């Protein structure tokens, strides 16, 4: 009867009404209408018929009017599509339809209509509908049939979105419970989907590259959800992508690039062990197709993934692959210029690489040495801009290894390190690193190596450290390091201490000179059992610093008409007390008494402006002396002659 109404919109609404009223009167299993003549099959037949007719009417709508109202018609059609889709929804609700019936009867009939109608809008909408409305397990079992229809659709249908939706649904289905996973294997879901996608890409020659990659991203996500253990599948997907990308120039379409980044990021997110991703042979090949900017972005993603998961990259092979992947950060790739990069971004990149170096570790010293040599080889290609960031990390990683080996291979690592450090265009940093290496050599009992490191440090100080503030810091570092050296024989030690004290006295500002020189006094007194305890030279240093303090005093008198830094005298007094307590026979209580009186006089003098720093310092020093005097035993006796 409804067939009589052939007007599209009237027909649609009429049939829709028919669908609505008949809904609960369908002879479904368990319904009151099930009977002798009426079975589920009849219900199915009825709905399918209604569906078919409604689809035809719907499609016919577009031919209704003249061309100029085509747009309006399209809009109308869009709005009415739900009426058609409703039929499918009704079908899905019929309980009597089991998998068998769906597979043999329902789906083929629906698909027949979809293919035959040859209407782009209808086909796209209906495919979507089918996927959304029917259960996932049905889709899994009818995968071949469903996918088989895809190449038969109109070439303008956005089939990739349909496929993506299908894969997404199936991914979620897989994620919902582990029990369904065997089903996927049984129906060979991966290969079917993989083939279908291949066919679609082949058929739609004009598909833009972003579409292709999006499809592969969906397939990859599906694979990672359903077959997380099948690295070969993952690699296969990447390989298919590489094939599609090869022969073309580097990607310039930003949407496509984004999709490639998504493609490459997916395995990283899935596999907490980043090293798993490193074994995918096609991974670096995909990266090669990115433009240099995006390549670096991807490299940062990889590094961040390692940092976030606290992963340890532990074999030389893995390190090699890793550095190959991040090569965009390690050096200037062909065709790029280092100056183009923003300063902040560059720093962030290089600091990331520096941090990464500490994630490379192996228990076996042999393997670790290999890793270090490998890293060294790579970062040395970085050029002068990168070395100040990356070399320190490498050096400290090496020093940690040296400490583990403690003497066995120290020489080798030592020489190579000197070579590496000499290329760092940052003299202050290099100086510090040389001193670190000297201490390590000291611990390994390698006197010549330690001496060589000190030589390099001094050379840098002489030739490159020109800023006075930097000199002060540098000389204190040299003094501090030298003070701890116990590997040097008398001659070597004398040469180095002579240099240190010499440079201390030549600092620009008198107060700095004074402080550095009295720091040098510690070079002649080491508290260890076998440590040097040269009381005379200690006193010489202290006296020298006193002379410098005096000179500073006089200079201040002349230039400013007021007394200068009394505080220096208080500092020196404290040093006298230090060595006095250590038992340096050259430091007498009389000398200390004199110094105390000197300071008192200076402070009370008319020309002296009260110094907010000196007064409390002197006061607390006197308190300290008093405190020591009150101690029982040897200390109290020692301090007894001193009157405060």
């Amino acid at each position, binding site marked *: 009867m409804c067939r009589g109404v052939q007007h599209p919109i009237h027909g649609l609404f009429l049939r829709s009404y028919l669908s609505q009223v008949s809904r609960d009167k369908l002879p479904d299993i368990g319904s009151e209408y099930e009977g002798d003549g009426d079975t589920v099959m009849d219900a199915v037949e009825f709905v399918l018929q209604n569906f078919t007719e409604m689809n035809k009417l719907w499609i016919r709508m577009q031919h209704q009017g003249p061309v100029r109202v085509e747009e309006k018609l399209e809009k109308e059609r869009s709005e009415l599509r739900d009426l058609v889709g409703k039929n499918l929804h009704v079908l899905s609700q019929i309980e009597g339809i089991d998998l068998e019936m769906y597979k043999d009867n329902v789906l083929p009939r629906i698909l027949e209509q979809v293919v035959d109608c040859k209407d782009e809008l209808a086909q796209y909408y209906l495919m979507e509908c089918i996927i959304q409305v029917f259960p996932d397990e049905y889709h899994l079992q009818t995968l071949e049939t469903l996918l088989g229809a895809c190449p038969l659709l109109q070439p303008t249908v956005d089939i990739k979105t349909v496929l993506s939706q299908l894969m997404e649904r199936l991914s979620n289905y897989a994620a919902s419970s582990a029990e369904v996973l065997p089903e996927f294997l049984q129906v060979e879901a991966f290969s079917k989907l993989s083939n279908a996608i291949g066919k679609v890409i082949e058929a739609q020659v004009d598909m833009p590259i972003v579409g292709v990659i999006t499809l592969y991203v969906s397939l990859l996500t599906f694979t990672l959800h359903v077959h997380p253990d099948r690295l070969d599948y993952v690699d296969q997907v990447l390989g298919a992508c590489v094939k599609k990308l090869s022969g073309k120039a580097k990607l310039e379409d930003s949407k496509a690039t984004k999709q490639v980044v998504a493609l490459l990021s997916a395995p990283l997110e899935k596999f907490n062990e980043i090293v798993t991703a490193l074994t995918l042979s096609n991974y670096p090949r995909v990266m090669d197709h990115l433009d240099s900017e995006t390549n670096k972005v991807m490299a940062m993603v990889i590094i961040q993934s390692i*940092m976030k998961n*606290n992963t340890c990259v532990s074999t030389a092979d893995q390190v090699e692959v890793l550095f190959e992947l991040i090569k965009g950060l390690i050096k200037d790739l062909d065709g790029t210029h280092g100056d183009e990069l923003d300063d902040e971004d560059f*720093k*962030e990149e290089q*600091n*990331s690489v*520096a*941090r*990464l170096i*500490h*994630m490379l570790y192996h228990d076996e010293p042999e393997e670790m040495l290999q890793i270090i040599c490998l890293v060294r080889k790579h970062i040395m290609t970085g050029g002068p801009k990168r070395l100040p*960031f990356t070399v*320190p*990390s490498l050096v*400290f990683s090496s*020093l*940690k290894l040296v*400490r583990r080996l403690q003497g066995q291979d120290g020489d080798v690592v030592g020489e190579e390190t000197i070579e590496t450090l000499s290329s760092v265009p940052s003299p202050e*940093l290099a100086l*510090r690193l040389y001193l*670190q290496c000297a*201490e*390590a050599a000291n*611990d390994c009992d390698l006197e010549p190596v330690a001496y060589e490191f000190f030589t390099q440090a001094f050379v840098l100080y002489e030739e490159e450290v020109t800023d006075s503030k930097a000199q002060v*810091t540098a000389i*204190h*570092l040299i*003094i*501090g*390091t030298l*003070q*701890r050296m116990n590997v040097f024989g008398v001659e070597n030690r004398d040469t180095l201490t002579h240099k240190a004290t010499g440079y201390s006295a030549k600092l620009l500002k008198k107060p700095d000179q004074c402080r550095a020189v009295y*720091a040098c006094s*510690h070079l002649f007194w*080491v*508290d260890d059992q076998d440590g040097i305890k040269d009381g005379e030279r200690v006193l010489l240093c202290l006296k020298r610093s006193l002379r410098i303090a005096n000179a500073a005093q006089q200079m201040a008198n002349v230039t400013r008409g007021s007394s200068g830094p009394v*505080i220096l005298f*208080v*500092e020196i007094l*404290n*040093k006298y007390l*230090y060595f006095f*307590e250590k038992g340096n026979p050259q430091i007498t209580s009389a000398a200390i008494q004199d110094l105390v009186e000197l300071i008192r006089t200076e402070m009370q003098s008319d020309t002296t402006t009260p110094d907010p*720093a000196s007064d*409390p*310092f002197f006061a*607390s*020093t006197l*308190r*300290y002396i008093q*405190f*020591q005097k009150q101690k029982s035993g040897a200390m109290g006796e020692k301090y007894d002659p001193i009157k405060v």
Partner: protein
Amino acid sequence: MVLVLAIGDLHIPHRAPDLPPKFKSMLVPGKIQHIICTGNLCIKEVHDYLKSLCPSLHVTRGEYDEDARYPETKTLTIGQFKLGLCHGHQVVPWGDLDSLAMLQRQLDVDILVSGHTHQFKAYKHEAGVVINPGSATGAYSSITYDVNPSFVLMDIDGLRVVVYVYELIDGEVKVDKIDFKKTATATTHSAN
């Protein structure tokens, strides 16, 4: 009750990639009133991170710090206590407690916080207390072998300060505490 975090010698990125995850999860913003940092962060990222934990951040310069503008020493008053801060590479011999005591007298402070040796220390002497929070990342040190990551939290309450030291030993966070009391003229201490 004022909570002060004493932390330093992280040496990121030269010697360590990051703070240990267990420390990171303990250090949350809003719980601490002041952070005093001995130095050697070394990069701006670390500074920003510490600043996000607490806006009252005080840093002294370590010899590897990227930012050369940090001061060599710093003093501040928190409650009844005067605190002094200095990285410690300037005080030779490194780690020598008598020499540090001298610096303490010079800065005229009750508590001196200094680092450089990467080894936790809390030492009481005639003029006050010297605290070394160690290295928060367990960074390599030429001075100390086998560095365990550590930091210090001070609870300043009136004339009393409780020093909590957090150390990461074999993957577990261990806490220890030491009490210090200040009298009008001097500081006494009782250990726990």
